[in-house]
């Protein structure tokens, strides 16, 4: 059973594929876009843009630090550089360059990290970014977007290119369920309510949105009604929707494909304690590194299943 099947969703494209196609499609209408690649363009899917616009694409080799600082120089010259790599190498390897060459000078660089989270699977923990959202959110002025499916990724890519300022877009490797086949009203910083309920609110991003929908489906069969929010923007966080959810449902569960440290859970907890304090629970990969394996096995072992969310909801409601 694939993620999202229980709630009636169908498998669609990977978010990285939706991004790559959108970037290529927008290339002609956004002449300032340039791509800086660390020789992983066929993985991050910037390859399509590079083929269509070879003069505006620079493969600078396996050198993420250099790649990010070059993008800073391009942005300072008025270009809109899109820098894509595996999320772990982009954020973890080039963090200082993102800080000094992009965030601190407030340059309009679009950082795109693919293969995020543990869903990259067999390649193992060295390739799994489970710290990237925390790292990106720690940088003043950086917008952080974690889309849940192909349609919202198309919208997120457009919104990122329209937005003037440093932005991190987090993408995944596997094909994921289509959540927004009927369209997606995407706005940076505005969460999307996918389901309403009274007993608790599940706030999720990325691949965990579909998991949250499966959990909500299961909970409703047990007579528990939950609201589900797709919190696609981790920063700036949609404080209004969070406070409303806390006020109206009385409990919040945060689900994300990230470590327990500094990601969406931490950000929402900060917001909740500042606005409408309510009991909270968290579904994430914990404070550990995962291992090689298949996606289903990894999600089961590292606690990212619908069942894990169901249990978290039940535990928090009882408090």
């Amino acid at each position, binding site marked *: 059973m694939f993620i999202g099947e229980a709630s009636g969703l169908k498998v669609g494209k990977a978010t990285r594929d939706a991004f790559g196609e959108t970037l290529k499609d927008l290339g002609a209408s956004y002449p300032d876009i340039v791509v800086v690649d660390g020789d992983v363009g066929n993985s991050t899917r910037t390859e399509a843009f590079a083929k269509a616009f070879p003069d505006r694409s620079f493969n600078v080799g396996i050198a993420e*630090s*250099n790649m990010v600082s070059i993008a800073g*120089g391009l942005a300072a*010259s008025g270009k809109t550089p899109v820098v894509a790599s595996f999320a772990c190498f982009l954020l973890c390897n080039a963090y200082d360059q993102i800080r*000094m*060459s992009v965030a601190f*000078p407030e340059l309009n660089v679009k950082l795109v990290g693919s293969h995020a989270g543990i869903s990259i699977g067999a390649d193992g923990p060295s390739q799994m970014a489970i710290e990237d959202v925390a790292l990106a959110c720690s940088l003043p002025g950086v917008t952080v977007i974690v889309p849940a499916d192909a349609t919202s990724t198309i919208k997120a890519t457009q919104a990122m290119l329209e937005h003037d300022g440093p932005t991190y877009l987090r993408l995944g490797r596997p094909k994921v369920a289509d959540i927004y086949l009927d369209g997606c009203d995407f706005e940076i910083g505005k969460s999307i309510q996918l389901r309403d309920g009274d007993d608790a609110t599940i706030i999720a991003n990325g691949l965990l949105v579909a998991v949250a929908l499966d959990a909500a489906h299961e909970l409703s069969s047990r007579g528990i009604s939950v609201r589900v929010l797709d919190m696609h923007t981790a920063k700036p966080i949609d404080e209004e929707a969070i406070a409303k959810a806390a006020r109206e449902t009385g409990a919040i569960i945060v689900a994300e494909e990230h470590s327990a440290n500094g990601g969406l859970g931490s950000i929402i907890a900060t917001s909740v304690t500042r606005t409408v304090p309510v009991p909270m629970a968290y579904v994430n990969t914990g404070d550990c590194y995962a291992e090689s394996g298949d996606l289903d096995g990894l999600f089961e072992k590292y606690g990212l299943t619908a069942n894990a969310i169901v249990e978290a909801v039940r535990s928090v409601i009882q408090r």
Partner: protein
Amino acid sequence: MASESNRLPIEGLKEKALTLRRHIIRMTTEAGSGHPSSSLSAVEVVTALYFGGFMHYEPTRPDWPDRDRFIMSKGHAVPVQYAAMAEAGYFDVDQLLTLRKLGSPLEGHPNRKRLPGIEASTGSLGQGLSIGIGYALACRLARQESRVFVLIGDGEMQEGQVWEAFATAHKYKLANLTAIIDQNGFQQTGATADVLDLTPLAEKIESFGWHTQTIDGNSMEAIVEALNAAIQITNCPTAIISQTHKGFGILPVLEAEGDLNFHGKPLSPDAAKKALELLS
């Protein structure tokens, strides 16, 4: 275009270099912190770039698209750039004395958000050449003739990213990019040769496909000649290894202080007074 006052003859450049040195001493001693010796070694290079006709810029229009770019990759030496910018007319000379003070755009390390004319925010070593590549690529895309000059410390050359940048600039044959290595021989805790020796530096850079010159970087004649040679090159990026003395111009004062490195500390008011006498 730069005005003719920015194209001084050699004697005028030497006079200007003295003026920049006096600014550096005054501003760092007033600030009570900073890196005067690291700034002093690079005075000839910065003077030649700003006032020798090598850089085209408009102080009243710092974002002029066709300007040439200067990136101070060894950001701690920015007092020499501030001094040049003040002399060029980017801001008032009196403002130099606000260096490192709360509210001043003349921060301890360059901040492009706060001071128009600063092209890159630096201070974490190793990034300036890569940023320069970004500028150089953008100039090429826009079919601009602009040149990009990046000043790098010799200690900074120990950062791996610099070598990633050397390789990349060669790949794109960025003849509009010039790296100047201020080889003053010292870094924070001692001589670069003792901390992490990169000799033979010229051969290393040359092997990356760069046109490379090694010169006496505290000789105005030598730096002018080297810059003239560099801008004639049209098929590859260019490097100038500028062999300098840390604290050049006030070496007797540093000798008397018993520290020829004198890294990351200002002269005391007394020592500054002696230094200014030397530079008068």
